[in-house]
C-alpha cells in the first residue's frame, strides 16, 4: 500500500509501515494516524516522539514491553504502563505508534 501526501506517493508495506524512514514528517504522521482512526493529541505525540528518539539512539523499534519500561523510566509510572499506552493506541502502542512514527514494525513484536 501507500500514502498520498502533497501529491507524492509514499510507499508502505502491506501493513502500512512506510518503507523509507527519511520521508517521514509530522504531516505524514497525522495522515497515517487518520488511517488508524487516531486523533493525534499531545499525549500521542509524546509517545511518537519518544519512539523516534529511541530509534535514533538504538536503530530499532522496541518491543512493547521494552517501550513501556523505557517510558516509565523517563516519563514516570503514570505514563509507563500498558493501560495508559493502550488507551492512546488501542491496537498496540508499539505497533500503531511505530507506524505513525514512520519506524519499521518492532523487532520481537508479539
Amino acid at each position, binding site marked *: 500500500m501507500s500514502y498520498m501526501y502533497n501529491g507524492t506517493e509514499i510507499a508502505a508495506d502491506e501493513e502500512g509501515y512506510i518503507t523509507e524512514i527519511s520521508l517521514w514528517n509530522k504531516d505524514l504522521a497525522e495522515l497515517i494516524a487518520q488511517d488508524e482512526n487516531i486523533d493525534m493529541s499531545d499525549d500521542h505525540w509524546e509517545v511518537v516522539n519518544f519512539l523516534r528518539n529511541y530509534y535514533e539512539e538504538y536503530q530499532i523499534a522496541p518491543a512493547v514491553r*521494552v517501550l*513501556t519500561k523505557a517510558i516509565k523510566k523517563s516519563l514516570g509510572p503514570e505514563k509507563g504502563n500498558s493501560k495508559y499506552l493502550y488507551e492512546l493506541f488501542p491496537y498496540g502502542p508499539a505497533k500503531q505508534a511505530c507506524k505513525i512514527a514512520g519506524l519499521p514494525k518492532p523487532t520481537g513484536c508479539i
Partner: protein
Amino acid sequence: MDDFDEFDGDGPEVVKRFMYVNRRAPYGTVYALECLETILIAAAFEQDVSVVFMDDGVYQLKKDQDTAAIGMKNFSPTYRALEGYEVEKLYVEKESLEERGLTAEDLVVPVKVLNSAELQEIMAAQDVVLSS
C-alpha cells in the same frame, strides 16, 4: 484490566537458557544482524539469554563503526539496546580480543571478558546453544 496482564505481569511459562555465539565480522554476511534480531525476539519472549562474541565476532561490538562506504546500516548501536531487553550476559572471548589487538574499552557495551575454558563451562550449562 485482564487484557493488560500479558505485558505487565506473570512472565512466560517456560524459560530456557539460550546462548547465541557470534563468530563472524558484522558486515559482508547477514549472520551478525540476523543473530541480533533473533536475540531480541528471544528476549521479548523473556527467555534467559546470553551472548558470546568470539573470533571475528568481536568486531561486531567495535566502537566507531563507519559503514557509509559499503552502503549498509551501522547496527552496532542496537547492541546498546540489549540492556533494555534485559539481556545483560554478554561474554567476549579473551583470546579473540587479544589476537585482534582490542580491549574491553574498544567495545560499545560493557562485557565480561572470559578465557576459552571459562566460556566452555558457561556453554555447558545452557539448554540451547546457537552459533552464527
